[in-house]
C-alpha cells in the first residue's frame, strides 16, 4: 500500500520535471539560437516478490515470478540540435549559421564556450562581441572610422567593411569567422546566456571554415530563431498535466485504502 503511495509520488515528481522542462522551452520560444530540450523517462527498479523457478509442488516449479515496479525516473534531458528558422533582421552585425557548427566565444576568465546565437555587437575598440560583451573568436576588429552599414560577411565567413578614410569603394578585409563542431553535440552542457561548454561526453571541438567539409554556412543579416515548436510543446503539456493528475489519483486511492484499513478497528 505504502509502495503505491511512493510510486504515485515518483510519477508526480517526474511529470513535474517534465512540465518544468516544457515551460523552459516555451519561455525561450523567441530566443535566438535556442535549442529545445526533451525530457526522457525510464522505469525504476523492480522488486522481486516471487522468484520464478521456486518449487510450487514436489515436481513442478513456479514458471513466472512477480516483479513489482517502483515508478519512474527522469533518464535524461536531451537537447535537440535541429535547425531553427532563419529570420531576416537587416542588422549588419547579425549572423546565423545555416547547418552545423557553433561560434567560439571567449568568456571573461579566458575559457571558451560555444553558441549558435549570432546577434553580435561591437565594443568601444571595434571588436566583435556578444550581447554580454564576450569576445567572438577568432578576433574580428573593425578598423577606426568604419561604416557599420557597409559590413559584409560572405557565406564562408570572410568579414569586410568599407572605411572612408582609406578608400570609399574598396572594402577592407577584417577577418575570417571560424566555426566548430562536436562528435556528440548532445553532450554539451548549457551554461545560460545561449552558451554551451564542452564536457567529456561531447568530445573535443573540430574547427572548420564555414561552408566547407559539411560545416554550415554563414547567413549575414539573419538570426536563427529557436527550434521550439509551440504546437508540439502544447501537446506535451497536455499529456504531462494529465499524467500528473492520474498519479495524484493513485495517491488518493492509496490514502483511501489506508483509511479503510484503519477503520477495521473501531
Amino acid at each position, binding site marked *: 500500500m505504502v509502495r*503505491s503511495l511512493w510510486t504515485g509520488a515518483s510519477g508526480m515528481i517526474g511529470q513535474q520535471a517534465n512540465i518544468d522542462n516544457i515551460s523552459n522551452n516555451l519561455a525561450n520560444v523567441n530566443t535566438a539560437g535556442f535549442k529545445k530540450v526533451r525530457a526522457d523517462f525510464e522505469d525504476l527498479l523492480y522488486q522481486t516478490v516471487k522468484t520464478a523457478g521456486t518449487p510450487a509442488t514436489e515436481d513442478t516449479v513456479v514458471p*513466472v515470478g512477480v516483479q513489482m515496479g517502483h515508478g519512474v525516473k527522469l533518464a535524461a534531458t*536531451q537537447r*535537440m540540435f535541429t535547425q531553427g528558422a532563419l529570420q531576416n533582421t537587416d542588422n549588419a552585425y547579425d549572423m546565423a549559421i545555416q*547547418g552545423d557548427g557553433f561560434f567560439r566565444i571567449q568568456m571573461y576568465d579566458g575559457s571558451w564556450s560555444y553558441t549558435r546565437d549570432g546577434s553580435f555587437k561591437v565594443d568601444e575598440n571595434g571588436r566583435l562581441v556578444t550581447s554580454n560583451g564576450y569576445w567572438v573568436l577568432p578576433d574580428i576588429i573593425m578598423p577606426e572610422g568604419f561604416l557599420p552599414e557597409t559590413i559584409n560577411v560572405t557565406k564562408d565567413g570572410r568579414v569586410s567593411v568599407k572605411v572612408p578614410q582609406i578608400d570609399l569603394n574598396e572594402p577592407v578585409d577584417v577577418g575570417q569567422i571560424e566555426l566548430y563542431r562536436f*562528435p556528440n553535440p548532445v553532450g554539451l552542457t548549457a551554461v545560460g546566456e545561449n552558451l554551451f561548454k564542452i564536457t567529456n561526453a561531447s568530445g573535443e571541438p573540430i574547427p572548420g571554415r564555414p561552408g566547407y567539409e559539411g560545416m554550415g554556412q554563414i547567413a549575414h543579416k539573419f538570426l536563427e530563431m529557436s527550434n521550439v515548436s509551440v504546437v508540439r510543446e502544447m501537446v506535451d503539456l497536455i499529456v504531462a498535466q*494529465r499524467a500528473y493528475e492520474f498519479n495524484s489519483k493513485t495517491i488518493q486511492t*492509496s490514502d483511501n485504502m489506508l483509511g479503510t484499513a484503519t477503520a477495521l478497528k473501531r
Partner: protein
Amino acid sequence: MIRGWYTAASGMRAQQWRLDSVANNLANVDTDGYKRDQAAFKAFPELLLRRMNDDGVYKHPFGSGDAAPIIGRLGLGVELNELYTNFTQGSFKQSDNDFDLALGGKGFFTVATPWGERYTRNGSFQLGKEGFLETKEGYPVLGENGPIKVKANNFQVDKEGRVWINAEYADDPNLMVSKQNNTWEQTVLLDSLKLVDFDLDRYLEKQGSSLYRETDTSGPAMVIEEGSRPQVIQGFTEAANVEPVAEMVQMIEVNRAYEANQKVIQTHDSMLGTLINQTTRVS
C-alpha cells in the same frame, strides 16, 4: 468464523498488490517503450470439509475403519499469482531525431551492458563521443556484428533495421558532414540492428531503465531473420502502451473490493463481539 477473517484479509492483500501495479503503470504513462503490467490472481488450494461429529466408523467385511463424511469444499482466499507484461504495440511519437528508433511489431533491440546482453523497446538512443550508438545510460546498442559506429547526419536505418552510411565520411573521425551536404554517393550497408525475439516474451524479467533480461522460461534470445523483422521507424519513439482509462477503472475496482473485504472482517468482528459480550454474558 475466524477462518473468514483470514480469507478476507488475503483479499485485501491481493488488492494492495494490484494497486501497486496500477500505480507503476500510471507512473510510467509517459515513458518511451514502457509495456504495462497486469496482475493475475489465483485462489488458494481449497480444503475438503468433513463432518466430524458423526461417529465416523464404517464397517466392512474385514472389520471397520475411521471415516468422516465429506460435506463440501472450502475456499481459503486469494493470492497474487503473477504479474505479466503485456507487449501490445504502443503508438508512435514523431521526434525528428535521427537517433530515435521505434519498433512496429514483436521484437527487441539488443543492448550490451556490463552484466551481459539486455533487451529493450525504448529506442531513444544517442551518439556517444566515441561515435557508438548508445542508450541513455551509455550502453552500446548492438548490431549483428557488434556495436554500431556512426556519425551524426550519416546514419540511415531502413524499415528492415539495416544501417546504411555514406562511406565517404566513414574513415576520418574528424571529417564531419551536415544534412544538406550528405549526397549519399557511396552508400554502403554498415550492419543490421540485432533485433531479437523470444519463445515466451511474457516471461522476460524487467530490470528497470527500460531493460529486459531473458529467463529460463522465456527461452534464449533468437535473432529475427530478415523478412519477418518488426518495422524499424527512424525519427519516432514508441509511446507507453498504458491505457489510462482502464487503469483508472481498475483503481476504482481495487478501492471498492478492498472496502468490501474490510466489511467482511468487520462483520466477523461484530459477530464475535456479540458472542462474547451478549450471548455468553455472566450475570
